[in-house]
């Protein structure tokens, strides 16, 4: 017989990525720390990630959530490419959220891409954490 004591509630796995040419990762690191303290398992990719790198890391790590942090202003060119790459890899089920210096006027277009929420400057960690907790899909529903 297999001894199966399934982990009652496994920690939510989150990938925090810094796409593109953007060397500012203080915000991302502070967020990584806050998510860790909220009990999440956080995989940080480091700087200068291409959409392909982000999708590949998300797939191999089988994360439930991807957080994209961007302060370069290139979000409207990078986000569509990232979302396309995720879809191409069959990762449609992953919850994607974004944060950084993103003008409010861009938010509707970003949400149209399938990014669930955008957290601008001044967003409370508690709001980000609550959003992830209530929207993260179940881990690996099927394989």
């Amino acid at each position, binding site marked *: 017989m297999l*001894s199966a004591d399934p982990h009652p509630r496994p920690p939510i796995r989150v990938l925090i990525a810094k796409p593109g040419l953007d060397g500012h990762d203080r915000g991302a690191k502070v967020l990584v720390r806050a998510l860790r303290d909220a009990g999440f*398992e956080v995989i940080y990719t480091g700087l200068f990630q*291409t959409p392909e790198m982000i999708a590949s890391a998300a797939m191999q790590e089988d994360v439930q959530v991807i957080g994209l942090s961007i302060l370069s202003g290139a979000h409207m060119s990078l986000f569509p490419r990232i979302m396309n790459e995720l879809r191409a890899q069959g990762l449609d089920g992953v919850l994607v959220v974004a944060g950084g210096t993103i003008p409010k006027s861009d938010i509707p277009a970003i949400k149209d891409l399938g990014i669930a929420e955008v957290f601008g400057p001044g967003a409370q960690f508690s709001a980000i954490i609550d959003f992830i907790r209530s929207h993260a899909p179940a881990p690996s529903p099927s394989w």
Partner: protein
Amino acid sequence: MTAQDILERLRGDRRALPRLATLVENNDLRGLEALDALYGATGQAHVVGITGPPGVGKSSLIASLVERIRASERRVAVLAVDPSSPLTGGAVLGDRIRMMGRHADPDVFVRSMASRGRQGGLAWTTASLVHLLDAAGFPFILVETVGTGQDGTDIASLADTVMVVQAPGLGDGVQAIKAGLLEVGDVVVVNKSDQPGAGDTIRLLRSAFALAHPTTARVVPILATTAVDGAGVAELLAAIDDHAAWLDSEGERTHRREQRARTEVLAGIRAALDAKLQGLPHDSGALRAAVARVVNKEQSPRRAVASILAALEDP
């Protein structure tokens, strides 16, 4: 599902292996059943355990080693374990940062794993994931474990080759002859060899290892590397391959695998007992009464533990 079905699924969909890994890690029955079916297909991989104190450059060295392994046209999987917070259960898994360069290579698989507060259980879960990667056809599996210093010898229980990574400036010759990590090393590496003091560290380690028991059949190589520019990494891979060949020629591999199976079964029992213990409510009457007896000096802690264990076995 038969092993054949599962292997076909793993080959056909790149999402399948990571998802199966999650199920195994979460102790989900679907994962455990698949693992069970696959077990017969394991035993092909050479498993290298990589351990050493935090900050000595284990992840960077692995990234460099992965480049070398790929240059020899072998597929490679990396399993990187980082600690979970005992307070919140959260973890920052940061080893992948050093390994992002190979994202486009389908023959490199990198997975981060949090320790999730399982002590004996960590070896158990890690061993299960190693079996999965082994069955999935990675001939080389590198396991990076929580960078403990003198402890952390668990890694020896699931690796064919144990690689202990040190860096300059971590202590004197007495540290090097203390029991623990260094004595389980099949290959010892001094990384950051471009830093001041590297030569001294290597000399210290060499003289410490020269004090080893004279019946030790094999001389443990002590190598210098600089992970960031790849210096010494070709020699490191050669030393790992040499050790693999030595294991095969001396019949040592069979011996180690027997030991590994024993340790793994014991670790599994420990993990199951741990899970059972966690089911013991902290305010249960039996526990409270036992604690009170200890506080009042009516019973020693050792006796109290024995009575609780007896109650667990025969509830």
